[in-house]
C-alpha cells in the first residue's frame, strides 16, 4: 500500500525553493494573509445556515457578546443559534481542520512519503477502539460536558501509537518503514476490534458508526476548550522543527552528517503530531482526507519549505474543514450530511489528480 521510502518526492522541488533566502521574518506576511482568509471564511460560515439570519443581525449578536456593546434586539432563538450552535461548530471545525492538516504535513515530512497522513500509525484505529468501548459500556454517552468519550478516544489513540512505535523499534532507532508497517498492523487490529464490537452490540451500531463517521453536529464550547490547548501547543512546538524537516527531506544519512539527531526529531515530531491528532479525533471523530490533501495542496502552490508548509497547512486545513462543515449542515435543508462524505468527495478526486500529475512529471522530466 505504501512505498515505504518514496524517492524523496519533495527533494527536487526543495532545491528550487532555495530555503536560505527565506527568513522567518519574510514569511510573516503570508501567515497574516492566511490567518485573515481563515477568519473571513469563519465569519462567512457563521452567517450562513439553513435558518436565514441576516448577516447584520449575526454581526450584532456576535458583537453583543463583547462588554459594553449593546446586543441588538433579535429573537432569542437567533442568538442561541448563532452563539451556541454555529460559532462553536465553526471554531471546532477550524481547530480540527488546522490540527489534522499540520499534523499531516509533519507526518509527510518525517515519512517522506506522499501517502502519509495523521491516521497512518494507529491514531484513528486506537481512538475508535477507545470510543467504541465507552459507547458499549454502561457509562453514560452524552453530548454534554462530562462525556467520557473524548478522554477514552484520546487514550486509545495514544495507546495505539505507542504500541506501533514499540513494535517498530529495532536497536537504537525506529525506521520509518517498520513504523509504517507496524502502524498498518495496529490499525487493522483496531479496526477489526471495532467491527466485531459493532456487530456484537447491534443496538449500539448506530452510535459507533456515528462516532466513526465524525462531524461537528454536537460541537460545543466545551469541546473547543478540550482541543485548543493541544492544537495550539503542539503546533507551536512543531514549528521550530520546520528547518530540520527541510533537511530531513534530503536523506536521513545526509541529515545525520549535517548534525541532525534524526531519531530524536522523528520521535518528537511524530509524538507532537500524534498527540494533536488524538485530541482532534477525540472531539470530532474520524474525518478523512484533510490531513492528506491539504498539505499536498500547500506544497503544490507555495512550495515544500516546512516553515511555510506547517502554518499554511493549518490555516488552509481550518478553512477547508469550516467550508466542508458549512456544506454538511446547510446543503440539505436542516438535515445533516456526513462531513466525511464531503471531504472525501472533494478529497478523493483531488488525490487522483495529484497522483496523475506526479506520474506525468516523472514520465516527462
Amino acid at each position: 500500500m505504501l512505498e515505504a521510502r518514496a524517492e524523496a518526492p519533495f527533494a527536487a522541488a526543495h532545491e528550487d525553493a532555495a530555503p536560505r533566502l527565506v527568513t522567518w521574518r519574510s514569511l510573516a506576511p503570508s501567515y497574516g494573509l492566511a490567518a485573515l482568509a481563515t477568519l473571513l471564511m469563519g465569519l462567512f460560515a457563521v452567517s450562513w445556515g439553513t435558518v436565514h439570519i441576516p448577516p447584520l443581525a449575526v454581526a450584532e449578536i456576535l458583537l453583543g457578546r463583547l462588554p459594553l456593546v449593546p446586543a441588538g434586539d433579535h429573537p432569542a432563538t437567533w442568538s442561541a443559534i448563532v452563539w451556541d450552535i454555529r460559532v462553536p461548530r465553526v471554531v471546532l471545525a477550524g481547530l480540527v481542520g488546522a490540527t489534522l492538516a499540520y499534523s499531516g504535513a509533519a507526518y509527510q515530512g518525517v515519512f517522506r512519503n506522499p501517502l502519509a497522513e495523521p491516521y497512518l500509525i494507529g491514531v484513528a484505529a486506537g481512538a475508535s477502539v477507545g470510543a467504541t468501548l465507552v459507547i458499549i459500556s454502561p457509562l453514560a454517552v452524552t453530548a454534554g460536558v462530562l462525556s467520557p468519550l473524548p478522554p477514552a478516544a484520546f487514550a486509545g489513540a495514544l495507546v495505539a501509537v505507542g504500541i506501533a512505535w514499540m513494535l517498530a523499534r529495532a536497536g537504537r532507532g525506529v525506521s520509518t518503514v517498520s513504523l509504517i508497517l507496524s502502524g498498518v498492523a495496529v490499525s487493522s487490529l483496531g479496526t477489526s476490534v471495532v467491527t466485531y464490537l459493532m456487530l456484537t452490540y447491534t443496538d449500539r451500531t448506530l452510535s459507533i458508526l456515528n462516532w466513526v463517521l465524525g462531524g461537528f453536529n454536537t460541537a460545543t464550547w466545551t469541546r473547543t476548550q478540550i482541543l485548543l490547548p493541544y492544537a495550539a501547543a503542539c503546533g507551536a512546538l512543531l514549528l521550530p522543527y520546520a528547518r530540520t524537516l527541510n533537511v530531513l527531506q534530503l536523506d536521513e544519512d545526509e541529515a545525520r552528517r549535517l548534525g541532525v539527531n534524526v531519531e530524536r526529531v522523528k520521535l518528537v515530531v511524530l509524538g507532537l503530531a500524534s498527540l494533536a491528532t488524538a485530541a482532534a479525533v477525540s472531539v470530532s471523530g474520524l474525518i478523512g482526507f484533510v490531513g492528506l490533501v491539504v498539505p499536498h495542496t500547500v506544497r503544490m502552490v507555495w512550495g515544500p519549505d516546512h516553515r511555510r508548509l506547517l502554518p499554511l497547512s493549518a490555516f488552509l486545513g481550518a478553512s477547508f474543514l469550516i467550508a466542508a462543515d458549512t456544506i454538511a449542515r446547510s446543503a440539505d435543508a436542516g438535515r445533516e450530511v456526513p462531513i466525511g462524505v464531503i471531504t472525501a468527495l472533494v478529497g478523493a478526486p483531488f488525490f487522483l489528480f495529484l497522483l496523475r500529475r506526479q506520474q506525468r512529471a516523472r514520465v516527462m522530466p
Partner: protein
Amino acid sequence: MTRTRSTRLGLALAVAALALLAAACGDSKSGSGSRPTPTPAASFPVTLDRSDGKTLTLDAAPQRIVSLSPGATEIIYALGAEGSLAAVDNQADYPQAAKDFPTKVDAYQPNVEAIAGLDPDLVFVATDSDGIVAALDRLHVPVLFSDLNTVTTIDGVYDQIRLLGRATGTSGRAEDLVAALQARERAVTGAVADVSDGPRVYHELDSTFYTASDASFIGDLYRLLHARNIAGDGGGNPYPQLTQEAILAANPDVIVLADEEFGVSVDSVKARPGWDEVAAVKDNRIYGVDPDVISRPGPRIIDALETLAKDLYPEKFG
C-alpha cells in the same frame, strides 16, 4: 457514499433490532382465550408471499421455527405459538420467556450452518443481512422473508401479525389480536380526531440528532396522533440526521427521547447550550419512550401509541 449507506444500514439494523423486540404483548393475547380457535389442519398447506417476490408453501404447521426477528418473536408469543419455536435471535428480550430462550442465534451475522443445524422447518427473516435468505434457500430450508423496511405503518404491523398467524396456523388468534389492537388504536385516534393543530414533535433517536421522519414507522404514530413531526418527510429518508440549528428553529413543543439508554436524559437535554429557548424545554415537555416498544413492528406498538397520546395530550388522556 458507502459510509452514508452503512450509516443508514446501521440505523436500519438498530431500529430493526429494536422493532423486532417489541412484538409480544401478553395482555392483549390473554383476552382471546375463550374465542374459537381454528383447527390448524384446515389452514395448511398455505402459500405465503415473501418480500423478495418469491413464495413459500408450508404443507403443515411448522414445529421448529427459528425467528431471526425480535418483533416476529414477540408476535409469535402473542399468538400463543411459542411452543413451535426452536430458536430466537440474540436481540429477542420480550416477553421474558423470549429473553430467557435457551437457543439463540445471531441475526446480524447469521451463521447459516448453525441455523441449518437446528433443523428448522421455518426460518423467519426480517433483515436479509449477509445474504442469509439465499443461503438458506440453497439448503432448502423454508424461509419466510418479510422485509422489515417495508413495514412503515401500523397497518403494516397488523399485516405482519396476520402473516405470522397464517404461517403458524393461528390465523384466528391473529385476527382476534389485530381486532383488539385496532380497537385500542381507534380509542386513541378517536380522541384526537378534532385536533387540527397538534404539537410540534422532535423524536430523538440518538444524541447526534438522528430522528424518525414521517416516512418511518415511528412517524406513522405521530401522524395518527395529529402531531407535526419537525423532521417532515425527511426528504424520503425515514431516519434523517437533523442539524441542531434546524431543531432550534423548528422550536418543537414536545421532545421525545428514544435514547435514554445511551445516557441522554431530560436534564441533559435541558443543559444543551442554546436549547433553553426551545418551547419543549421551557414548558418541561420532554418525555422518554422505550425504543424497543416504539420501533419494533409488534403488538406493543399500540402501547407506544397510548403512551405518546398521554405525553402529547395530557389533558385528553390524563
